[in-house]
């Protein structure tokens, strides 16, 4: 197997996979998928790295899984290519609005195992899709999915992910998207689960007026480690990208945001924006941020901002002076803090799922 990346690599300086390396993986067990949320649209379910035919709808534009060749520089993608046996292969024809699709990835077993899914999603010109991804599990496992996305001219993909892996799980997610002229990729990830997780996005804006919005909310506690890494490459003029990452860290949690905006020579009139805010709720929580700009064109507007801090004492007092007790006041301020990252999730079903998951985050000890 290809070796795991180490902290010596600049891209991995804040995330240490040695705990994952120490695991030895056994046979992939069979999994019984527990209750799935009600969802109006079609659904596709993966259990322990395989599609569950019984639980999945027959999708209109799906194709059979075919093994992949990997040429990218990411070593995790190579491991995925060596091991992947299934995944969603979807190709929405030009002009078709495929509506909303719920994809559930569930992993569970008694002994450690690894699941490598390889998803390929292509939207033809002006096609549309909303993909809602629910990632859950039980026990110790490594979930290492790779999703390759290709959007043709004018296509729009809305991709909403809720990562609620088991507390002992490792999740390394790689998403690569090529966006053609006038197309848009809107992404939202809520990171709530896993002992260690890394969500890594590489989005290339290849045609004029392509755009992407990458949003994430990380809610971490205990000894959880959550890493959100996003690289947006502006290869054509007049493209826009936004990255908004909010992290709420309790106990001894460790949050990471690495964001890079690359503007290639000739990509004039680029509009690039990155914002990372972290809220520390405990003395032992830590946050590392590396927001990079790499710019080779002069007529661009790029900015980034980052803040790290605790809850604002003044705001807390104001709420309490109006009769709201402390835990509720804190919860209100934390919700408010996350608001900006959630704003793009306008779909009601998806919003409901997120709110429920986050509501649970407060109440479970």
């Amino acid at each position, binding site marked *: 197997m290809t070796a795991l990346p180490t902290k010596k690599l600049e891209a991995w300086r804040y995330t240490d996979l040695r705990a994952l390396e120490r695991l030895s993986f056994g046979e992939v067990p069979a999994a019984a998928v527990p209750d799935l949320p009600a969802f109006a649209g079609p659904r596709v379910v993966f259990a322990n790295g395989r599609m569950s035919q019984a639980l999945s709808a027959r999708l209109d534009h799906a194709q059979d899984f075919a093994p992949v060749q990997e040429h990218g520089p990411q070593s995790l993608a190579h491991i995925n290519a060596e091991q992947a046996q299934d995944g969603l292969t979807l190709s929405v024809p030009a002009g078709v609005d495929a509506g909303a699709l719920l994809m559930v990835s569930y992993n569970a077993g008694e002994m450690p195992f690894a699941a490598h899914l390889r998803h390929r999603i292509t939207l033809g010109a002006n096609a549309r899709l909303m993909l809602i991804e629910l990632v859950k599990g039980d026990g110790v496992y490594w979930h290492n999915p790779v999703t390759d996305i290709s959007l043709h001219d004018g296509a729009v993909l809305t991709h909403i992910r809720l990562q609620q892996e088991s507390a002992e799980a490792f999740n390394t997610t790689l998403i690569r998207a090529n966006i053609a002229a006038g197309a848009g990729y809107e992404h939202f990830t809520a990171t709530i689960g896993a002992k260690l997780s890394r969500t890594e996005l590489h989005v290339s804006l290849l045609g004029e007026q392509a755009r992407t919005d990458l949003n994430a909310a990380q809610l971490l506690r205990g000894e959880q480690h959550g890493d959100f890494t996003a690289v947006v490459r502006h290869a054509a003029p007049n493209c826009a990208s936004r990255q908004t990452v909010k992290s709420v860290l309790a106990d001894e949690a460790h949050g990471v945001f690495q964001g890079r905006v690359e503007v290639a020579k000739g990509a004039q009139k680029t509009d690039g924006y990155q914002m990372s805010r972290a809220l520390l709720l405990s003395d032992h929580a830590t946050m590392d941020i590396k927001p990079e700009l790499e710019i080779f064109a002069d007529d661009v507007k790029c900015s980034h901002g980052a803040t790290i801090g605790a809850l604002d*004492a*003044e*705001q807390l*007092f*104001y*709420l*309490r*002076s*109006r*009769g*709201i*007790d*402390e835990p*509720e*006041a804190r919860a*209100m*301020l934390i*919700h*408010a*803090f*996350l*608001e*900006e990252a959630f704003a793009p999730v306008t779909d009601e079903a998806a919003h409901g799922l997120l709110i429920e998951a986050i509501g649970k985050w407060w109440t479970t000890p």
Partner: protein
Amino acid sequence: MLEIKNLHARIGDKEILKGINLTVPTGEVHAIMGPNGAGKSTLSYVLSGRDGYEVTYGEVLYNGVNILELAPEDRAAAGIFLAFQYPVELPGVGNANFLRTALNAVRRKRGEPELDAVAFLKSARAAIKSLQMNEDFLKRNVNVGFSGGEKKRNEMLQMALLKPGLAILDETDSGLDIDALRIVSEGVNALRSPSFSALVITHYQRLLDHIVPDVVHVLAGGRIVRSGPKELALELEARGYAGVEAA
């Protein structure tokens, strides 16, 4: 009834309140005037329980209960309301959600039934109307992007809904235009009753033309240096603090 007895308080090592004695019987409105930096806001924060203020001596009884031990939210439930000199902005917190959460928290603690969304909206709309505010206020985030005057009106809106027994207005008149001053005063006067009292902190007589106080106190250097009938405010206006303190 509010009774402040020989209250000393400090911020860090700095003593700000140096023995305040003040009694506001229920049903009365008292004004507090005094030079910048005298300790007026400090007093209002100490009364409402803000962190960072250490009471080194003295006590504060509200309706016979020592409130200095209470958390800010419990003082609010007990009926104490502070209209902040500088209202705080809460980005991401919707005004309607904030008002309703506060109102129901207070009602719960007072043993009153909580209001559902419909009942809440009804009373909020009524209050907004009486303060001649725009209903958009409810949709916006608390005080974010509000003008100075709008923030003060928002404080009055909260007061109208929370129906306190003791209102402390810290320079609520500053930043208000002439019409707003009248409207806000009417809001306060509407609450006046034998079971309501108020401490009105201000620098200007014109507010006291609208909210006529029963007693005027002068706070200077951390102490009440003069108290008198409403005419004292006129004297202050004419002679300044130096002249009045000396008298």
